[in-house]
């Protein structure tokens, strides 16, 4: 958390924003349950509260917001509903399947919370187009790791054929360097290479959360 104490701005990636907003109260058979992604929501809520109380501005890119609305929420809702612990949390029998209509309801509620988040004074969405050469520099860094045991292992876990992250993630790295603000993320494309990215000056910092 050393980086946090030195900066007044932090950058959130898509998952950090979604997990922060994925916190809903629902009534199920008369009792109220809290819907959240167990490992992540509480931690990002606490971290965000610390940032706000310390006067930080939380920033993200418009590209990140598009990713959230197009795919991000759907992906997290699906992961949440596929998790065996979820049924237990919301009191559904083990054999029951969480229906698509309930998934849509959760997605809609999350989307509405994210829209409300955009009205907060401490949260800013920035239009940002990184320079091509900066993106190529980041891409070059990841490509240079191709074939290394660390990258092989990373790609295997991530089930991907490309060594480099999405365009949006690369933009976040470039923006972090330019803005001199760390990125809060749990994306293994970034967290697995935190030390390398930081030491090569490809970003200002990575706060791996949780």
């Amino acid at each position, binding site marked *: 958390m050393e980086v946090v104490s030195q900066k007044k701005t932090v950058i959130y990636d898509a998952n950090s924003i979604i997990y922060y907003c994925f916190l809903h109260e629902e009534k199920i058979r008369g009792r109220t349950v809290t819907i959240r992604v167990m490992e992540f929501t509480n931690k990002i809520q606490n971290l965000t509260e610390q940032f706000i109380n310390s006067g930080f501005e939380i920033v993200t890119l418009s590209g990140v917001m598009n990713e959230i609305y197009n795919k991000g929420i759907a*992906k997290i809702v699906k992961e949440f509903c596929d998790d065996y612990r979820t049924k237990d949390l919301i009191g559904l029998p083990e054999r*029951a399947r969480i*229906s*698509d209509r309930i998934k849509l309801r959760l997605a809609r509620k999350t989307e509405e919370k994210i829209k409300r988040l955009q009205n907060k004074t401490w949260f800013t969405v920035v239009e940002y187009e990184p320079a091509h050469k900066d993106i190529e520099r980041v891409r070059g860094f990841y490509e240079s790791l191709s074939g290394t045991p660390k990258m092989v292992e990373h790609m295997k876990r991530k089930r991907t054929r490309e060594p480099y992250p999405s365009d949006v993630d690369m933009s976040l790295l470039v923006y972090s360097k330019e803005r001199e603000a760390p990125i809060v993320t749990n994306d293994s494309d970034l967290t697995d290479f935190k030390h390398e990215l930081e030491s090569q000056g490809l970003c200002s910092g990575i706060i791996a959360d949780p």
Partner: protein
Amino acid sequence: MVDKSVSGGLPKYWPILYVVYRLKRVYNSFNLQKYLYLAKVEGNAPIEYMFVNDYCGPRCASIKQDAISLGARGYLKVSFENGWVFEITEEGARVAEELMNNLPVEVRNAFDHILEEYSSLPVVKLRDYVYNDNNVHQRPGAKLRTRTEYKDEYGELKNQIKSEINILLHDFSGMESNANTLFLLGSLDYCMLVLKREKLVDSFQKDNLITLISGYVKKVMLLRELMGDNPELVGEVCLNDLKEDFELIQEASEEYKVLPALYEEGIDLSVFVDVEE
């Protein structure tokens, strides 16, 4: 500058601007179309738009398109929440006032009366009113389907829609998860539960609800057909119109006490659990 390209000195879009000017904000393009329809039929307003009978009510697709164009001209602010939202701008208000000077007082009065009477009425009620057989005012143009036409075919029709929904659910669940597939799956799944739960005895309501769902499912089927062998395209298309249709289905389902709206706050989630699943 008011466009007076149409005979009679009024541009075709005048009633759109008039409605939004009067109400300041119109939520849902169905509302906009219904006001224009009622003003034309009941208020005898000189409205050029032609209406066809649709599952959502008398419909004229060019009204929505023209309203969106008025947005591009700066007369309206157009946005999309759960349905299209049209708001008057300063420039739009100025043009509307200019247009109003060319409107006969009796037309304005009749139009205002329609807006006053129906502006607080839910869309689905408005639709019920327009399609109500006892209402003598709503049969311009093509003949509307009679309420009893399906009477003995509800069961078969519901089974057919359910089977269409099942095909679509199967298709979309095999596609990559994104906001659009999640919406299509969730909305179709909701419609399926509505069909299962629906035991309406009022044939008017029953017909309305089933027709709404049937029309929606057909639209989704058309979308699926258009994607052909490229189902990944579903993530790229804009589903705003389908979302607006789905709002109407939820509204009808809630109004007729079949199932609460999916997005309603404070309801018990167990109402959406189907024990057969």
